[in-house]
């Protein structure tokens, strides 16, 4: 499926996921070595997205397990379907009497029932939960264990068996082993350090905020129709924002939201007022917003305008001309342009 690191990069790119070589390398390794990947990094840099896109690119079904505090094996591994068992006993009541007909002693009756009891504890009555489903899936699947750091330490222990041997043990039935090993992605926001035992079984991938060039490319792909210059300015602001000491630095998802918001507002260039009005799209804490406001002047650094000697007094006439004709009146060019 994936022949090389480049092919990973290309195929994820086809799905609209722009990634650097480091990400592609780890994905390729995971694919070739059949090892789980533990993906860490700040919120919103596309950890979950990566798993989805890999599933998409490899044509595997995505089986997702969302972790939360209190998640237990009944919800993650398997569960006995009690009501179905109950129903079956009701329906099969007559059959039971048939089986037991002729039994002379109590012991004999019990033995006969005992010989049949395996039908009640068989696959028939097991509800497979995501982990078991990923293991028993006849075609190779992709298992996404999302936000594994939110789960309890005990839950990690369940995961270990799955991750290292790709098998699940159900005491009453036996061990299910994977016919085809699923590709496993675990994501973590670092709310809690995962145990070494878990980490040892995984490849580790740390996704950081993208570089400026990468982020511009992501914008190009994800927000079609965005003006190149607007994208560059916007990404510039984001990159500088991340350098501020914020409670929650804005990540890629915020960049995309913001770009879409600006498009909806028919903005063609970034100026102080526009940023001030739309800052709440990218920053989610009151304190952060206030801090960004006070730094606004420094956030918006115009790249040197392409030299236009004809334009007097450096009026930014160019962007206004570049704007697609539409009902929205272009903003007056003198307003809020920073140099």
């Amino acid at each position, binding site marked *: 499926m994936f022949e090389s690191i480049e092919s990973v990069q290309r195929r994820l790119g086809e799905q609209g996921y722009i990634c650097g070589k480091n990400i592609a390398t780890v994905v390729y390794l995971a694919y070739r070595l059949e090892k789980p990947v533990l993906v860490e990094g700040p919120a919103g840099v596309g950890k979950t997205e990566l798993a989805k896109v890999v599933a998409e690119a490899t044509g595997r079904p995505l089986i997702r397990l969302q972790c939360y505090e209190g998640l237990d094996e009944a919800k993650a591994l398997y569960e006995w379907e009690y009501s179905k068992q109950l129903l079956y006993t009701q329906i099969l009541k007559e059959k039971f009497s048939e089986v037991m007909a002729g039994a002379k002693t109590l012991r004999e009756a019990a033995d006969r029932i005992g010989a049949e009891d395996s039908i009640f504890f068989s696959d028939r009555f097991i509800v497979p939960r995501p982990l078991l489903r990923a293991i028993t899936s006849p075609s190779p699947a992709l298992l996404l264990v999302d936000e594994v750091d939110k789960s309890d330490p005990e839950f990690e222990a369940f995961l270990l068996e799955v991750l290292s041997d790709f098998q699940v043990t159900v005491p009453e039935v036996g061990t299910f082993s994977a016919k085809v090993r699923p590709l496993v992605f675990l994501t973590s926001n670092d709310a809690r350090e995962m145990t070494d035992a878990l980490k040892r079984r995984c490849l*580790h991938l740390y996704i950081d905020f993208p570089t400026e060039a990468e982020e511009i490319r992501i914008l190009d792909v994800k927000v079609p129709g965005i003006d190149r210059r607007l994208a560059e300015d916007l990404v510039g602001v984001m990159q500088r924002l991340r350098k501020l000491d914020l409670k929650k630095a804005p990540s890629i998802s915020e960049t995309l939201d913001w770009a879409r918001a600006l498009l909806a507002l028919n903005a063609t260039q970034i100026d102080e007022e526009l940023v001030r009005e739309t800052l709440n799209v990218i920053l989610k804490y009151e304190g952060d917003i206030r801090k960004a406001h006070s730094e606004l002047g420094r956030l918006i650094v115009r790249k040197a305008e392409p030299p236009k000697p004809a334009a007097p007094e450096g009026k930014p006439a160019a962007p206004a001309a570049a704007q697609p004709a539409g009902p929205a009146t272009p903003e007056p060019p003198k307003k809020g342009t920073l140099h």
Partner: protein
Amino acid sequence: MQKKILEFTNLLRKSGVRVSVAEAIDAFKALDVLSLDERAVFRDALRSSMVKRSDDIQTYDQLFDLFWSGFYDNLRDAFENMAGDLEAQGIDLDQLMRMLQEQLEKLEPGSLDLSELARALLTADLSQLEQLIREAGEQAGVSRIENLLQIGFFSRRMMERMNAEGAAQELRDLAERLRAQGLSDDQVEAIRGLADRLLEALRRSIRSFTERELQKQNYDYMERFRRETLTEKSFYHLTEDEIRQMREVVTRLAQRIKSVLSIRRRRLKKGKLDLHTTLRRNMARGGVPFEVAFKHRKKDRPKLVILCDVSSSVANVSRFMLQFVYSLQEAFTKIRSFVFVSELGEVTQVFRDHDISEAIEKALDGGDVINVYTRSNFGQAFHCFWQNHLSAVDKRTTVLVLGDARNNYNDPRAWCLREVKNKAKNLVWLNPESPGAWGFGDSVMDKYLPSCDVAEECRNLRQLSKVVDRLVL
């Protein structure tokens, strides 16, 4: 290659990165399925299979650069420098080399019997040289280097192992033989000069090789030294930069308290049978209780009340303590923070509304919350707390006092603290002074001691984290 990777693994371990055997094997497996012509791929492959903690990534990257690269560059620099020197003297190295090659070809084949090193030097074959230097380094046991003073020793030893002098002599002899072939004196002189310079370049490269080795071996030492000194350093003497680093550590500490507490909460989860929920849940099975539900015991969410002394005598400490308080407040919901000098003021809301540095400025800056330019008076502060805020304390509350108990000979009013203690679950006092000084001079710590469940010296990060452990467990 295998050997080098194992060596690198060892180096990582030495530097405090945990790499298990299984992980090292994974690294080999990973390299098997990759083509290694790209450095970045190689680095990422090793990293993803061996380094699993994001904290270690920085260490890894630095070690990787030290280990896997650079020396070749050093070598090239040394030889380029040499070429530059020669050029300054009006000698073109390329031309000289070419002339030399021509002359060598004229020699009868087989009569030229040069050592490997001499040959590598003559042809300026840098990769061959690198190989030779590495081998010599291994023979000389350069990886045992421990300090700066040994650089000379190991460099000399490597020179000996390589027989560098011998190679230089060979080159000089060669020059003589070429003279016999009819080379002019100038040319012979140039070749002899070249031999000296080659030797010098080699010596320099070897020296830089040992220096790099020292850096590698000492990376961990220097790092650990830096970190340890930070945790040991008294809060009284912190620089701006250190305070910033401290902040990260403190935040992590507060985070740890929180995670420990949440685990504790979960252990207490199973309580009495919850009949209502059990019936509801099992209605689908005709009321047969297949799944039982339990009443959750009330969550034991600890309450915290913090009284922090911010007088000038503990200026640096209190700044730091306030950071700690701030981080705690982010981790807990039921927490109230107060600061005092002689009067007492609540800063819970201030901390909640502002970000950390602003909040601390506000708490410390005179006038906003309390007047900080008076002389500290613990008695009055405690009295004020007892009078106005005693309702904040109940049976589940831990009261945390941070201060040096230097009371300026005011009335300690120890009974106020005792009253508070009687109402609280426990009372913890963290004092930046060592126990030896308690009760001497204007310190009234001895008066307060009977009212404290725990009283600890807390002057640096290590002590603080120890106290934190006791606090939560």
